[in-house]
């Protein structure tokens, strides 16, 4: 059987009415008291968190900032060739022991 446009339109209209009919079902009111009970339980559990758990939660908030800082520092080090061992070796090579302070400054 072909699903004609007209039938499709009629069916959609009818199903839409059926769908909205579902709203008319009555529901009791007891569940609201249970919701407040659950909410108070959750609140109590959250309030009971230990000092270290609270510190831990607070520290996690800084994780994105820490990651961003690590990334920025990494890029800076790579870009400006800031390798500490290499820099130290360079200073030592240019500053032999026999040079005095004045000579080093004059170079």
């Amino acid at each position, binding site marked *: *059987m072909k*699903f004609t446009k007209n*039938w*499709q339109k*009629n*069916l*959609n*209209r*009818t*199903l*839409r*009415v*059926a*769908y*909205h*009919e*579902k*709203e008319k*079902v009555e*529901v*009791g009111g*007891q*569940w*609201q008291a*249970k*919701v*407040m009970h*659950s*909410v*108070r339980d*959750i*609140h109590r559990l959250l309030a009971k968190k230990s000092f270290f758990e609270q510190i831990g939660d607070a520290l996690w908030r800084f994780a994105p900032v820490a990651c961003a800082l690590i990334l920025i520092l990494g890029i800076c080090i790579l870009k400006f060739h800031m390798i500490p061992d290499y820099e130290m070796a360079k200073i030592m090579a240019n500053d032999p022991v026999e040079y005095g302070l004045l000579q080093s400054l004059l170079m």
Partner: protein
Amino acid sequence: MMHNDSGNSGDAQIVGLVLGGNVNAFETLMLRYTDHVLRIVKRHVNYEVVEETAHEVFVRAFQSLSNFKNSGNFRQWLSSIAVRTCYDYWRKVYRSREIPMSQISDTHREWLEEILSDRSGQSFDEKGAQEEAREVLDWALERLPAGDRMVLELVHLEGLSSKEAADLLGWSVANVKVRSFRARKKLQKLLCGLINDRGGRL
């Protein structure tokens, strides 16, 4: 889904009180929006689980209250939580298949054929109000995946725009459009098969 500014600021104040530690203030919000949440939940889930789902909606709302932006519309924010809770319910059901699927009888097929031929003389409103209409609708929706079901209900049965449905579900508009088109095709196929299959099985 409109709500006035005084209502918004009132809601924001209550949210502030709850976040400040006054848990009992949440009851005011719950009572204010019970009807609204129930209306959404009743449309999307079966009668037996309406209370349980509404309960879950308010608990989730309480847990994510700190994410509510005071400038936003609380009603809209809560609607989104309600729709997503219903969606999660159906996803869980489809994954576990814990609810037996309803069966269709010849009475339902006759009801569909009456619409096809439009020979009963009843208006569409009368036909839609019949128990058969709801049962055929439930039968077809049960056979669709959770996402298809939700999008079909929101866009085709409630008449929301793709943008509104996307906001409620937290999807992109393009995704809603694609899912909605596919879901409608699947529903047509199911109902067409129901009429063609006089033997009673799809």
